[in-house]
């Protein structure tokens, strides 16, 4: 019966009479083992790391969108969010009747802004950031103005583009 273990701890035999410091062959073997183990870990960890990094999605190259709304349906002193490629955009008609479009993401912490008709401002609900009708940050934490887009009205269609 082998399972009746005697409880002895068997240490591998060691040569205690050798010269001080590990012998050259031992040093070489250790180097070989260490390099091998390092190479193995690298060849396992590299694919895993690369796997975890999400692949680059096609960068939104949208420079121009035609909105699915008619210009005459946009009331004065109102605003709405539209899709500008993969980003939200903010379309407003000022109380004076001018159509304007901005990037819809607050420059503070990327919340999506909304139009407040009671104060005629673009407003971010997250941290009470205010932008005026030119997209300039006028109150609250936003550090920069909203990027303004160019709006072209053509046969009642609204075309928003990044550069004229």
């Amino acid at each position, binding site marked *: 019966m082998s399972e009746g273990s005697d409880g002895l*701890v068997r240490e591998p035999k060691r040569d205690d009479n050798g010269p001080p410091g590990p012998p050259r062959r031992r040093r070489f073997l250790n180097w070989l083992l260490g390099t091998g183990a390092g190479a193995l870990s690298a060849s396992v960890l590299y694919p895993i790391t690369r796997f975890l990094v*999400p692949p680059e999605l096609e960068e939104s190259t949208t420079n121009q969108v035609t909105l699915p709304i008619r210009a005459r349906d946009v009331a004065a002193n109102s605003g709405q969010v539209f899709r500008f490629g993969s980003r939200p955009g903010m379309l407003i008609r000022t109380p004076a009747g001018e159509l304007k479009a901005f990037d819809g993401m607050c420059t503070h912490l990327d919340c999506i802004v909304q139009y407040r008709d009671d104060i005629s401002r673009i407003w971010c609900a997250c941290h009470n950031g205010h932008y005026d009708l030119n997209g300039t940050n006028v109150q609250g934490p936003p550090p920069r103005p909203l990027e303004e887009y160019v709006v072209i009205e053509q046969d009642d269609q609204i075309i928003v583009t990044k550069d004229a």
Partner: protein
Amino acid sequence: MSTDGPRRGRLWDWFDRRLGLAGLERMARKKDVPVHKHTIWYYLGGMTLFLFLIQIVTGILLLFYYRASASEAYESIQFIMTDVKFGWLIRSIHHWAANLVIVTLFLHMFSVLLLRAYRPPRELTWLTGAGLFVLMLAFGFTGYLLPWNQLAYFATRVGTQIVGVVPVVGEGMLRILRGGDDVSGATLTRFYAFHAAVLPTLVFLLLALHLFLVQKLGMSTPPSVKKEAARRRPLPFMPNFLLRDLVGWLVALALIAALAAYFPAELGEKADPFAPAPAGIKPEWYFVFMFQTLKYLPPHILGIEGEVVGIMSFAVAALVLFMVPFIDRRRGDEPAHPAFSLLPYLWIAMIAFMLFMTYLGYTEAVPDLAPAT
């Protein structure tokens, strides 16, 4: 506590005082591995464990991109295979290790059977092992559906239908398994929950018990080689046997990497519940012998449906197999009871039957399609 080992520095001492590392180390070093002509079989358990660890790592990685829904599952795997860096490698390794873990599990189980290592006091080791075996098959069965391709979809229809055949509880179990009357998106999310949450939890519980028992009871020496084992010096498990284990694991890892590189996992066509079953529908290879056997059964045996008889026979056979330590009850260090001395031949006959049916399953001239339901 730390006085009986070599000094290992203050960090070791700090943890030792709080965790009792020295005690753990004593337990780890307690086990010896007997050396005899059958020693090679002792490596299979560790090999299975290593392959399962690969499954955990690659499985967790796949979770980062996999989406468990009928409309997205197939596309997400496509994304993993084509867009994600090394995605093809991770998935192919998961695929190949999944197959190999079943291979080593079969070998592990049959070697334990033939060498009678299940005998007292190792009944619980055997039972937990049998439980792990069933769980691994369930892993394979549920994982097969997750890519949501044609082959898997129909194999799962057929495979789950088997459960419905079981008398009395079959219908209810079938609905629970499928998450409805048919295999659908609901089945996919269910299988995903089984595969990624339920089964891992159960495996960890059983595996912990299994490994604890192996460590506590030590390795079994087959009665036939007792003399040889007594003559030769046993190998300490720590570190001698473990280092040999590691070499085997490295070889396995290299083999899996090569298989994954040269034969990457395929994806096939996306599942279409309204398309006719494609030709050549087969379950995973380790279920083929059962499906093949069922095909040969006549429609009725003694007035009972042939399928019912077949499935119940497999269930009874599995039950007998799992209960074998309570049948062949002599202690592990005694010679076998004469009544059971022929037991190994029964197992060999069983293995031969499984191999033969699998062979027929793969060589049959006209592949049978999904049975009419």
